[in-house]
Structure formats: structure tokens, C-alpha cells
């Protein structure tokens, strides 16, 4: 018998059931204090390739994905200002996960690799945020060569001179606010300095025993210009304005960052007023002391790796955000540089309401140096 309504009942069951399925899975690790559940990785044989000191990082090849590693991200943060002198914090990230419990099949639906992407734009009053997921083989997410492209659905980072280099590039994405407004960002990224490799030639150690490590490089000298178009929920009106500012790009890949010992991390990317850049990172581990590292990058691109003895990074003030006490004010000291910085979040609630929620937002710097940057807090 012909059905008068297409199978909306099943469709909605699917929605409800998917929700419940995911809900059930989220409840599974309620007692687990680690950042990601490692259940599929219980067998060490299933771990992806390990980051190692002998890896030679080469470009442009290493701009592309490294599927043999468990997790990877291409991470862009930017401190922007509009024509009206309003400040905006921008974050665009593409994540890749490898899941060994998923069988790679011949089907375009069967892949052991998954992409997740976040797009976030903060003004002082508003937050636009969207999240996407995609399967690797389906064709709606991934990275391409000729020219270098990172994409997920209609979000795209694309080299705009047709080469396989990371920059210069255009970046387009959209996001929605809780009030229902939509923002579309069309941005141009140009490089005003070299790429830098953290740690030893890109091999970045993140724990005292060296168990946690990654391959990690950055492009901290990006200049961003572009256009924001904001559409109101109810009206057809679109308001648009130009923005510009400094951006910081990270590309990191590892199989050793996320395990049962990892409680979370705190990360900062700082643009100092004197033109230097600073990356500071605190790894919080279970039953171990916090491990603080960093990279000091002078304006000519020379990188100095900061060991735990070289840098002090301490939370000063905890503020209640989204039901959690978050360290939104920090004290950073680098004795060798005579540097004593106070780093404070520009806006209290810069929470990303994602499937894996975390704090990511603009900070201001004061002290021996002024500046601006981004703060990321995970695992709280």
C-alpha cells in the first residue's frame, strides 16, 4: 500500500535513536577523567604510528594529512578588529581521527578515518559556533593537492595561487549563533614570516617521561583580512564589514597525546607587541606533575624551545564558566627573556559548545610586554 507520508516515523526514530545512542555512549565514560575514552585503543597493537625524533618534516608534503597517526589537526586562531574597531576572536580547526575499531572497506561509507571541524567567531557580545563531522572516503571532507586545500562540506581553506603551499590562502566558512544569526567569513591569509617547527625539528615532547609527544609546526606570522557577513534570524538583511588582524596556524599530528593519563592541556598562542610570538603549553597528567613547554619565536622567525625550567606558566584566577572553574588569568614568566606577562581572557564565556566541549578564546597580554593572543583550555 502506498504510504501517504514518506517514512517520517522512521526518520524521526532515527533522530531520536541516534540521539539516544550517542547519549548512551556519552554516559559510558562518566567516571572516566581522561579527555578521550581510549576503549578502542585498549590493545597497544591498535595504536597508530608514534611520533619520533627522527622524523624529518618537509614542506609542502607535511601540510597534508598523516593517516597512519591517530589524531591530527589543522588549527587556525586569529585576533581581528573590524572597521568599527570591534574586536573578534576567530578559530577554525579541522581535526582528523583514526579509529582502528572501524573497518576500512571498499565502500565509500567504510573508512577508519573521521573528520571533525569547528568554526568559532567571538565578538564581545556574541558567539558564532558550528561543528561538522565527515567520513574520509565519502568525498565531502579531506585535503587535496594542486592547489593545497583543506575542506569539510562548504568550509574550505585553499591556496589561492594554485600551489601546494599552505599560504597564501583563502578561507571561507559559516557559523551560527545561539540567537539564530548566521555569519559567513570570507578571509584571505598571507604569510609574513617563516613556518616554525616546535621542539626538535618538529618533534614536540609534552610529558616528563617523553611518553606524550607529537609532530608540530606553526605559521605564527599570518596576516588575515576579510569580510564578515551577518544575517539576522528573522529578516533578510545582511550586515557586512571588513576585518583584519594577526593569525596563528598550528598543524600537529600524534598517536601519543591522548591516553588514560591525559587529563587535559592549556595552550596559548601569543602575538607580542614587539613582533615576537610565543607558544606556551601546559600538559596536565594523571599522577604526574604538570609539564610546561613552549616556543619563543622572534620576529625574524628564530625559534627557542622553552623547557619546563625555562618557562613558568601558572593560573592566577579561576572563573566559573559553564559550571566549571576555568583558569582565565595566567602569569607567564621567562627568566631568560626578562619576561613577566599577565595573560587574561578578554571575554569570560568563550566556551565552544561542541560534541567535545572546550574553552577557546581571545586573551590580552600585559606586563613586561603587551599583546594579544588565544587561550585554549581542555579537559576541565
Amino acid at each position, binding site marked *: 500500500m502506498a*504510504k501517504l507520508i514518506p*517514512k517520517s516515523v*522512521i526518520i524521526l*526514530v532515527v533522530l531520536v535513536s541516534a*540521539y539516544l545512542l550517542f547519549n548512551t555512549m556519552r554516559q559510558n565514560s562518566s567516571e572516566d577523567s581522561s579527555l578521550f575514552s581510549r576503549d578502542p585503543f585498549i590493545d597497544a597493537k591498535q595504536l597508530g604510528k608514534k611520533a619520533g625524533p627522527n622524523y624529518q618534516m618537509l614542506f609542502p608534503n607535511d601540510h597534508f594529512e598523516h593517516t597512519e597517526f591517530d589524531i591530527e589537526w589543522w588549527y587556525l586562531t586569529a585576533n581581528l578588529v573590524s572597521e568599527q574597531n570591534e574586536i573578534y576572536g576567530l578559530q577554525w580547526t579541522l581535526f582528523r581521527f583514526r579509529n582502528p575499531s572501524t573497518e576500512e572497506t571498499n565502500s565509500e561509507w567504510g573508512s577508519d578515518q*573521521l573528520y571533525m571541524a569547528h568554526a568559532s567567531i567571538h565578538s564581545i557580545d556574541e558567539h558564532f559556533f558550528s561543528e561538522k*563531522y565527515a567520513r574520509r572516503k565519502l568525498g565531502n571532507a579531506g585535503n587535496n593537492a594542486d592547489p593545497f586545500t583543506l575542506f569539510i*562540506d562548504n568550509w574550505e581553506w585553499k591556496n589561492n595561487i594554485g600551489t601546494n603551499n599552505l599560504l597564501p590562502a583563502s578561507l571561507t566558512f559559516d557559523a551560527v549563533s545561539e540567537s*539564530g544569526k548566521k555569519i559567513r567569513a570570507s578571509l584571505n591569509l598571507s604569510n609574513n614570516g617563516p613556518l616554525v617547527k616546535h621542539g626538535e625539528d618538529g618533534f614536540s615532547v609534552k610529558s616528563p617521561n617523553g611518553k606524550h609527544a607529537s609532530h608540530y609546526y606553526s605559521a605564527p606570522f599570518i596576516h588575515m583580512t576579510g569580510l564578515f557577513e551577518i544575517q539576522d534570524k528573522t529578516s533578510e538583511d545582511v550586515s557586512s564589514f571588513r576585518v583584519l588582524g594577526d593569525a596563528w596556524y598550528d598543524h600537529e599530528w600524534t598517536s601519543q597525546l591522548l591516553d588514560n593519563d591525559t587529563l587535559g592541556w592549556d595552550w596559548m598562542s601569543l602575538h607580542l607587541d614587539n613582533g615576537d610570538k610565543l607558544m606556551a603549553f601546559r600538559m596536565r597528567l594523571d599522577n604526574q606533575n604538570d609539564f610546561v613547554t613552549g616556543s619563543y619565536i622572534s620576529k625574524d622567525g628564530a625559534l627557542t624551545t622553552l623547557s619546563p625550567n625555562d618557562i613558568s606558566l601558572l593560573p592566577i584566577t579561576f572563573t566559573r564558566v559553564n559550571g566549571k572553574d576555568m583558569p582565565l588569568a595566567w602569569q607567564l614568566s621567562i627568566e631568560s627573556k626578562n619576561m613577566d606577562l599577565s595573560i587574561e581572557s578578554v571575554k569570560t564565556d568563550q566556551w565552544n559548545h561542541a560534541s567535545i566541549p572546550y574553552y577557546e578564546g581571545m586573551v590580552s597580554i600585559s606586563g613586561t610586554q603587551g599583546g594579544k593572543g588565544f587561550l585554549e583550555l581542555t579537559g576541565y
Partner: protein
Amino acid sequence: MVFVKLLISSYKQAKFSLLMLLLSLVIATTGLSAVLIINNSAKQSYSSSNEFLIPNVSHQIIAKSEDTPITTQDYVFLKRSGVPNLVAIAQQSSYLFKDGQSITPSKIEFTGVDNVSLFPILISLNLGEEEENSQPTNIGLLNGTAIVHQKFANLLGSDLSELTIDGQSNQRLDFLSITTLNEPTLGNDMVMDLQDYFKLFPNASLSRLLLVSKPELKQRDLDLIQQWLPEHLKIESLNNDVNNQELTNSFHLNLVAMALLMFVVCLFIVLNSANLLINSRMGWFKVCRQLGIPRKTIFNVQLIEILTLGFVATLIGIVVSVQLVNFVSPTVQATLEGLSGKEVGFGNTSFISLLVQVFSITAIGCILAIAAPLIKTNQQLSTTKAYLSNIKLGKQALYFSCLTAVLASICALLLITASSLMLLLIASAVLILAGCSAMLASYPLILKRLAAIVPSNMPLLKVSSQQSVLLCGKTKIACCAFFIAATSNIGMNLMVDSFRLATQSWLESRLASDYYLYSDEQINLVDVENKTGVVLTPRIDSKIIYKDQSIQLFSYPTTQQFKDAMVFSDVDNINTTWEKFENGSGVMVNQQFAYSLGYQLGDNIRLPHPSTDTITNFTIVGIIYDYGNPFKQALLPIGLFDTFNGDTSIYAVEASSSQITKLDTYFASIDIDTDDYRLYKVEDLLALSMQTFDQTFLITDGLNVVTLLVASFSLACAMIVLMHDDRPHNMLIRSFGIGRIKTQLLSLYQYLLLCIVGLLFATPFGILLSWVLIYKINLQAFNWTYPLIIDGINILMIYSVSIFVVLCVVILPFIRASKRPIIEDIRWLN
């Protein structure tokens, strides 16, 4: 309190009546609970869908035609273009086989969802958990998991490796693990990620792309999406408010109607049983009155008693109904889904809520049921005079005769003029009422005639026959109910049996070949015949549009064998018919085509030529039977299809069993796997068809039996009541020295006479009803019909069942009465 004590002590004497009442109440509450449970499940499924439908999934993207389905590339293209919140769905219905048999009567709905796309959408729509408790999600767990309802999981069993899809050994579920979800919308469904779905159905395509949006997409959003849509896809709204509202009303109406029907039926049987009980107590009610116990006390206690019995029966009824519903659940589910077009899940029913519902309705029913007997009791208690029934048979007969005439006229008018199904159904109801009225008008007269026929040298029989005339006036309601049930039963049974016989005979004729082959593979017919000796005759299918409707255009061979196989509903000269058909000027159409479009033999129609697509004139040379086909169909000779690239998936096979073996070998040699074709022996095909037929009418048959049993039971209860009124007559017989057994046998004869006359009346009306169902209702609803075949054996079976049930119920009181000593019989006073 005195009266209560008296009542309790009277139970020893009123065991049978109380048992009858309790049994009636249990039947009533069981039936009512079962219907409410089924209603609740269906309603939950329906309201769940409506509740979630509005905020989130407002539109979907589907293919304009089945020939150009949605591809993965389309999905990717739309996502890359920026269509927001798009989720791909793939769906397929198949049977799940275990040990060579399907585990459910209806197909399982397999649904694949792009969970990866869906997940962040759910998060953003705030359907997820509060962030205070947020923990990361391991998306890897999505794969290899299927969501099913707990009850369906019980059907699947613990070992999924035993299950195959449609019996295909290469399509197993062993890679899946089951997660249960007691969501009422879930019926016989398996919901999984698309990765697993395409493992099961590698050649399947996407069914639809959902647009998930909160709030609903605005027109500007839809216009933007429309710009991106490939040519072969379209956007469709899922919120078809008018349709939804109509369906909701219709669905609810169906459910309410079912519940009301059950309530009325139950009320009826309880009424008769309550009547029985009250009548059995009439004697000591009068004694109680004489002792000074007020009527009000008597009535209140009766009311409390029946309500207490009602409560006990409710508890028993609910327990029994749950088991009953679980037992019949798969069939009922399939029937409801077929009737409503909605997926019906298993549903959850709270015991307390069901208890409250059933007891409330039972209480109302009990009060209504006992009201009539109590009113009658009140009248009888207010007088010491003997109650003499004053049956003015003549006046009643005239009244009912007039009523019969009016109802018959209305029925005839409706049958002649009705253009809608509803009016025809009303005509059926009026027919039955007319029959009822005719029976009431004629009952006394017929019984009088029968009494007159009995020879005078059989005085006892004659007296008893005359006594039955008096009795028939006191059992109108029960006799009417019995008549209605018997008429419906005869009508439905004749209809179903006619259909069964017609279908069987039609299939036996049309399935003229030795075997039938089903395969989508390209087969070289000449090569097959040369190498194996097997003659394959393809049926070339196509669909055309005729008068804005989709019509099946099939080929038909013109060999003598197939000419003989054809079964015509309407045809002129058979030789001329085939001549015109063979030369390409004639077309044969099925009844559905002819009746729905208003065509007759000899009419000209213009159809596209199957080879050239040129619109060509054809004359309708034959109208054929095509039972159960929902589509209109036209047949043209296979010769016209020579150059046409139509679809061929069915072949008639002329072969011996040894040639069939060669055919299997041949297929293997050209790389056609055994999974790519199915070969059915004609006897097996016929058996399968008839088995499906019987399963389809399982519920109908069940309901028929139930209604007949219920009506017979009620009639029996009414008869037991009459046994009290009959005691003066029996007293007279006994005082003449007639033995007690003989006396009771004569009483039994009276009552069975009522039953048999009722059945005799029901027979012609049942046949008429069958005629209406076949030639009017079936034709109106489906545009096809079949010959009515009156099977005497069938009717006799109905007679037997009815009389058997009546006998079973009345035999015990009769036996008890037959054991009464003569002194009790002859001293009985009203």
C-alpha cells in the same frame, strides 16, 4: 448488612449465573484491554512521530523518479555546496529468514543513517546532554551496531548469524550487535549506520536526504537549496498539514471505532449475563422484600456486586489480554500498518493506567448493563401479580415489516446510486438491519407455521413449537445480535472463500508453464534453448503514463498454451479476440484499468506503441481478471515488443526436471550465481500464493469466529434467562407425567429452534451481504471483482459452530434442571 449476608449465602445456589456473569466480564475486559493496548501502541507510534516531526525535520530531498535515484555524489555535492544539516537515509524492506522461514509476517524495515552527519546536528539542536555532565563521545562505537525495539530483539534471538536477508546466504547480520531501545515508534525496524547498511545491501542507493532544521527552513533557505539541486532531485515538505490532519483524524477514528465496537459488544454480553443473574434471583428478591429489605438496598448491593466482579474481571482480563496481544502482535501490527499506512511500533503500556482505563469503562458498562434488568426487577418487585407478557404479535409483525420495507428501499437506493465507499458500507449496514427487521417481523409467523406443520399426533412437540413463538418475543435483542453476527459471518466467509476459490482457479489457469524464472540478469533466450532445450518466454514490463496515471504495459505470448491460460472477465467471440490481439490492433486490459477509467469491450484507447513509442490506436478486446493488483494494466502481444528495450525479470519456463538441471548448469557457465536468479516450480508458486492469501485473511477469519462465538454466547445467556420464564410451561408438561429429561429436551428443542430459524434467516442475507461486498464494495475500492461462489458446506459449518456454542453454554443448566424433582417443578409459582 442482612441483605449482603443473604446475598453471599445465595452464591451456592447461583453459582452458574455468577460464573456466567464473571466469564462475560472477563471476556469483555480481555477484549477491551487487548484493544486498548493495541490502540495505545498505535497511538504512541503515531503521536511520537507527530511530536517530533514538527520542530526538526521539515523537508527532505528525494529523487524525482525511481530511475534516477539519489547518489552518494549528489549527497557530497549538496554538502559541498553548503546545504546545511543534511543527513542521508537509505531504507529497504526485506524479510529476515531463520531456518528457511521468515521470522515475522511483515517485512523488516532496514534503515541506514549517516550518523556521522547527524551527530553534530543533534548536538547543535540541544538534544544532547547538559554540558555539566559532558563527556567525550567515542564515535567508533557507531559501527556494527543496530538499534531495535526490545520486543523485536526477542524475535531476532541471541545469535544473529542464523539470520539471513530474504533467505540469501550471503546477506547475514553476523557483523552487527544489537542495542535495544524501547521507543514506541520502533516496530519491526533495524536502524544502523550507513556503513553497516551498505554492507548488508551493497547495491542499494540512498532513499532520501533529510533537512534537519530548528526552526523550520524558511522559503529563502529552500530557494537557495533549490538552486543547488541537481535536475533529478526535488525538495519535498514533510509537514503536509492537510494530509497529516486527515490521516490523524482517520487514524484516530479507526482506533476509536475499534474501541467503541469492542465496548458495545462487551456491553451486550454483560447485559445478557446480568439479566440471567437477576432473573435467577428474582424469587428470593421477593422474599427479601417481604422481609422488609428496601428495594434501594437490593439495587445498591447488586450494583456493588457487579462492580466488584467487574474489578476482579478487569485484573484477570488485563493479564490475559497482555498474553493475547503478545501472541497476535506480529499479525495485528502488520494489519494496522497495512490499514493505516503507518509504521506501528510495539508501544509501552503502563499497568496502572490500563487498569484505571479498563475498570472505568467496565464500571460504566456494568452500570449500563445492570440498569435494564434492575428496571425490570423494580417493576416486578412493585407488584405481586404474575407478570403476563402481552405479546401482540400481529402489531409487531406489521411494524417490523414496514421497517423492513423502508430499510430495504434505502439499501437498494444506496446500492444503485452510491459513488463512494462510505455509502456502500452504510448500505451494507442497512442491509443487515433490514434483515434483522425482517427476521423480527417474520420470526413469530415462521415459528407458527412450523408449529402448524408439526403433526397433531406429536402433541408435546407441537406445544413446544407453539411455546417457542412466545419465547421469540422475549429474546429480540439476543436474536438480533445473533442474526447480525451470523449474517456477517456468512457474508464474510462467503466473500473470503469466493475470493480464495477464484484466486486459486485463476492462478491455476494463468500459471500455465512448468516453472517460472525470476532474474534481472541478461539472458540470451536462443542460446538457452539451443544448449538446454528449455524454452523461456519473457514478460517484458514497462510503465507508461495514460491519462496522468501510471499504467503497467506488459507483453503477453500468443501461443495456444497462453491463450488457453487467459481468464477473461468480459470477452466477446474468443477467436476474433485473439485474432485482433495477435495482429496488434487489440489490447487486453485488467478490470482495474477498465472500471476505473470507465472503459468497456470494444472501446478504443490510444497507447504508446511499445517499440516505437508512437501513440497508436488499440481496441479493447478483452477485460481480464487481475486479482489483488493495485495497478492498471494493459497487455499487448509479445511480438510488438521485439525491438523494445523493456525490463525483463520474469520468464515462463517450459522444461522437464532434467532440463532444469541443465539450465542451472548453463547459468553457472555464464557466471549467473544461484543468488542472481530464482526458479519456482508452478506447484510451489501456487502453494506460496495461497499461503500468503491465507495469512492475509488470518485476522478476518479470527474476528469472524470471535464475533460468532460472542453472539452465540449472548444468545445462550438469553436462553438461560428464558428458562426461568419457561417454568410454568414445563410445570404443565411435568404435571402430565412427562419425564424430566424429555421435558428438558423439549425445552432445548424450543431454544434450538430459535437458533436455527435465526440462522436460516441469516443465510439469504449473508449471501446478499457477500454479493454487496464482492460486486459493489470491492469494485468501488479496488476496481476489480470476482465471482461469488456459494459453498453450502461453509454455511453448514457456521450453523454447526453456532449451535455447538449455544449447546455448550445451555447444556449445564438443562442438566441441572433435568435433575430437579417433580415436586419442585409442579409447585413453582411465579
